[in-house]
């Protein structure tokens, strides 16, 4: 995967030379060492990023074991394409692009399995739960503060699961990975306005579901 052309097209500032890359993005520098078959650099990258990817996929799929498998798949793809890596954009953007593709492939695989009668992973079926049903559940008007922390976490997970895959991925990249809209656009293969719209709709859906659990103005 070569992120150079698409990265500059989407507004990400290209890093001009390998030296600049190393100074500006230590992960890109590590990746260059991985490309030169440096196994230690690969391990360092894993230690820096695998936990974050597990978190990302955990909240994306709702299942920790699936998240570990997907995070591993991302790094296997990174390793396989190490000789094709060109450090012209941030390493993280390249990694999130692969992560997005891996999550999309999981979805495609689960659809194919359903065609042949193989059950989808529980996580995927959970994420298909409709927002309407969840909103009805929330409309019991449980007073804010009553729900304890664990219950609240459960509700947040349900609210995330009710988003569609793209909305959820955009929210997770923005919230947990602090990605800019440009980076999210690059990773998900979308335009920046599309990402803005995605985040706006995601926010709206989250607010519809979680408003009973937050203290709004005047409450």
């Amino acid at each position: 995967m070569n992120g150079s052309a698409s990265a500059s097209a989407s507004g990400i500032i290209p890093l001009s030379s390998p030296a600049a890359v190393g100074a500006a993005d230590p992960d890109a520098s590590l990746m260059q060492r991985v490309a030169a078959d440096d196994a230690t650099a690969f391990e360092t990258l894993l230690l820096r990023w695998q936990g974050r990817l597990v978190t990302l996929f955990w909240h994306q799929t709702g299942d920790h074991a699936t998240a570990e498998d997907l995070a591993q798949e991302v790094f296997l793809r990174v390793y396989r394409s190490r000789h094709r890596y060109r450090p012209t954009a941030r390493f993280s953007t390249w990694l999130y692009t692969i992560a997005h593709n891996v999550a999309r492939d999981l979805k495609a695989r689960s659809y194919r399995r359903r065609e042949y009668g193989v059950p989808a992973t529980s996580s995927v079926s959970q994420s298909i739960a409709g927002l309407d049903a969840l909103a009805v559940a929330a409309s019991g008007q449980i007073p804010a503060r009553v729900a304890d922390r664990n219950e609240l976490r459960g509700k947040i997970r349900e609210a995330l699961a009710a988003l569609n895959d793209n909305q959820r991925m955009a929210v997770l990249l923005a919230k947990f990975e602090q990605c800019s809209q440009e980076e999210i656009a690059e990773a998900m293969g979308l335009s920046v306005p599309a990402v803005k719209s995605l985040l706006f709709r995601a926010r709206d859906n989250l607010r519809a579901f979680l408003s009973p659990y937050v203290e709004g103005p005047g409450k």
Partner: protein
Amino acid sequence: MNRGRRESDRLIDTMGDAAAGNGVDGGSAETAEVALGEVWDLLDLLPVADAPASLTASTIEMAVISADVPRTAAAGLPAGRHWLAAGSIVAACLALGTLVGSATLPQPSENVRDYPVVKQLDLLRKLGSIEFLERFGQLIESSPRLPGGRRPNPQLEAAVLDFSLFGRSSTEAVQAVERDRDGWDADARRAFRDAQSDFSKLSSPRKRELRMLTEALAEATDGELITAANRWLALLDRLDPLERAGLVDLDADARLEWIDRRIERLRRFNNLRQRPLPGPSERRAPRG
């Protein structure tokens, strides 16, 4: 995290703008923005996962095992000729398939007997044969470092169910097949027809091998065969697709040679490392 806070503020600003742009008046837009900030902050309650050392170790092992793939013969062709070669093979297979298919239509009883084999042909070809799985199982015993197989493969589980449901030439089996087929959509029917055509092109010994494998998996009460199948599928799943395709076509001996070479590579890699990867006993059990 300054960058994070800046991005977060920017996102909230964008969303506030969008709310205002959607016809929300000034006061409501402000309220909406505050509520958004709170919802956004609520997401901080979500826990952060850690990657267990076992996952890091297993990822490195898989990367070492699957690295520097010896491509199949087709990979040695100049780029432009790949399509030509693939196209010729497809055209030849289509022509041959039409001829063979029209000449050797299976009898109804044979149709039912082979139904689970055809339905799960891709999976069975990946698994290879009873001989391979048994020898692979012995290898796992002596070489527990081989990664993969942490969880049952759902496709294998569904296939084993199929094998025990349909793998009989009886009236119930015929009815079960009919019921099963009723639930299919157009894509599933097309996939089955393709598999049927592929199966018809296999040699008789290979067909027999796959039928025997199907029966063995359906009757695998001790679980060793299933365990080996799970581990092998997990290993295959993590390989480069091209390498996976090449391995599927190999016989048991060639597959085991490939595995031996990769285990040797893993040993060399671990000997070179200053800090060894955690052993199986130190690995944490996967969380459910």
